[in-house]
């Protein structure tokens, strides 16, 4: 009985240490955010997008893309330098049903050194807010974070790894991805 308890406690301790070390490793990765657990609100949401893709899953996804097809090749090129893609997006029937505190906990992480705010859009009439942050390590982008909120929707995107917005831009209009009109594009068009 005692031996069984010892084995059980050792197994529990080992599991806990594995989970803790994985969390520490994730937090230590530049560009990676510790996303809150949104299980409580996912039941209230009418539409939920919960995506967690680590390096191995991204590699697996890339292996199922056909390099011969231009669209697949473009996506493959984008995800080649990524270490993780995490998306949490919730749409509700009513206004402001999501916990602001959880979003603030993510914002606090973005105040850490390395993170820079690229865009901060706060539109008062329709209460739409979009903040785009980029994590720079030794002059290179190693992470992207987007926090977008509207009265009935909020989205957090965290892309870990070498992010190239221009490459993402190249995907516009393909594979169901809506056209992205970056300021550079507008400037080029006006010339």
């Amino acid at each position, binding site marked *: 009985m005692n031996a069984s308890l010892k084995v059980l406690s050792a197994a529990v301790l080992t599991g806990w240490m594995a989970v803790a070390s994985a969390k520490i490793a994730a937090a230590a990765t530049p560009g990676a955010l510790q996303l809150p657990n949104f299980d409580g609100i996912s039941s209230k949401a009418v539409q939920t*997008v919960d995506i967690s*893709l680590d390096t191995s899953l991204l590699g*697996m*996804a890339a292996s199922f893309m056909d390099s011969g097809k231009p669209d697949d090749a473009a996506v493959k090129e984008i995800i080649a330098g990524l270490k993780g893609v995490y998306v949490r997006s919730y749409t509700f029937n009513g206004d402001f049903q999501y916990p602001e505190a959880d979003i603030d906990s993510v914002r606090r992480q973005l105040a850490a050194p390395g993170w820079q705010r690229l*865009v901060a859009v706060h539109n008062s009439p329709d209460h739409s807010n*979009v903040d785009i942050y980029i994590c720079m390590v030794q002059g290179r982008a190693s992470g992207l974070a987007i926090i977008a909120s509207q009265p009935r929707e909020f989205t957090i995107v965290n892309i870990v790894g070498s992010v190239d917005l221009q490459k*993402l831009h190249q995907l516009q209009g393909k594979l169901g991805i809506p056209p*992205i009109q970056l300021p550079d594009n*507008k400037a080029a068009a006006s010339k």
Partner: protein
Amino acid sequence: MSNELNDRLRAALRPVDPGESFTQGVLARIAGEPPGLRVSAHRAVRMLELRWLSGALLAVAAAGFLVAHQWQARQHAQQGQEARRQVMEALRVTSEKLDLAYQVVKDKEHSGA
């Protein structure tokens, strides 16, 4: 003539008791045989049975391996397709939000101008 021949044949072929010494001799010979010879026939049958059994087991194992391999390949393909779908969905959401930011900036520029 034929009856006489018949009688002589019957007399010659009548059953004769070999005697106690013959029976003892046969029993002594059986007892003197090495045990391996007596078991060998039984062992041969057992070996044949075992060979069939091991062949059947090997076939079952091979079939099991094949089924497991196919199941694993199918699982891998499903996971890969799901990962691919999630990548596309993530890129769609990301670009949607980037576009939303741009639209708001553009609207502000227009209203400011």
